[in-house]
């Protein structure tokens, strides 16, 4: 149970960092908005998958 909590914290930090970095990138190069968003969503989905896997392993 504690492990699941830790994993969720990690996933939160990870997705937060991806989102923040994507914001930085968009601010630097607004014309690459579409590409950055796609890459961001894929990375976020991959991390999210790990989080869910951990949650389901615990429950």
């Amino acid at each position, binding site marked *: 149970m504690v492990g699941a909590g830790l994993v969720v914290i990690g996933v939160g930090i990870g997705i937060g960092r991806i989102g923040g970095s994507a914001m930085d990138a968009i601010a630097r190069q607004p014309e690459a908005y*579409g590409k950055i968003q*796609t890459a961001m*969503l*894929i990375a976020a*989905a*991959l991390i*999210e*998958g790990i989080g*869910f*896997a951990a*949650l*389901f392993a615990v429950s």
Partner: protein
Amino acid sequence: MRQKKLFNLLTTLLLLIAFQVNSQHEETQEAKELDTAEAGKEARKEYIQHHLLDSYDFNLFSIKQEDGTSKHIGSPLPIILWDNGLQIFSSSKFHHGETVAENNGNYYKIDHNKIYKTEADGVIHYDESHHATNAKPLDFSITKSVVMIFLTGLLMFLLFAGLAKSYVKNGGIASGAGRFFEPIVLYIRDDIARPNIGEKHYRKYMGYLLTIFFFIWFLNMFGLTPLGINVTGNIAVTFALALLTFLITNFTGKKDYWKHLFDPLGDSMPWYGKLPLYIILIPIELLGVFIKPFSLLIRLYANMQAGHIVLMSLIGLMFLFKSWFGSGMSFMLAFAISLIEILVALLQAYIFTMLSALYFGFAAEEHEHNEAH
């Protein structure tokens, strides 16, 4: 003409809303009869569990009557079993899992959402770890999820066949629903398939990508209607979808795909240098072939399942507080989460399609050059 269409749409919406209010009203009545908090908690858990699972009959909602028995509104579905020959009968024989069903002298009983073969008395035997030890016939029943998948397939077929016809009639210009779907189809072609698979091969995969996108999206959206049938939150369904992606990736894999698997370093190193590396590298690459579709199936399943659990738990708050304030709060939260879920429904369909396209890109890519990467 247009006004009539709008009117039809509004009536449908109102009916849907009325239906939702109606079904929630029934839930409230049911919850009122639960005396203690503990019983209420158990009932909520069971209700959520029940909602997430597949079921042998299409039960819309249940009403508790004055004499204490429940009245179920819905329709039974066919049960198809392979047990010394084909056994086909209606799920109404089970009376919502409460009684033993008899067909051609065989007796069956539902336990924990699975059909077991029993004697005439319908007793199910358990071992120490509380698993049923009765024989389990092969089950090909048309369950609630299967009905929903058939309906979605039919809807998609009619919708897109109709769209294709309208394009021919109008000389390639979108009309009606086509104005909504054309940008989505173009987006999948130009922003998902083309950049990931490559200009040369993307055409071959378009049919599958479009099908899987709309199939997952529609099923996710149906899961959010008051019917709330959790099809994409069923691991068997997502397994089948991921299996398709897996098979297509590996059967359309070109020379370079297999070379990348078994000889990733290429000519950049002599064989005696590669040997110790490959003992580790090749198993990892092979494992990756299976992990990719596995992550697809877990992601879709877990996202949809989690979304439904959160929604149902928030609606369950209503019965925890049993006050106007609690109901209001639960309604507001459920409403907000529903909005997020609409986004998630689209996002998950998009991610699944996107990653499938990415994997197809690995399979279809061809190198003109000989350098390693």
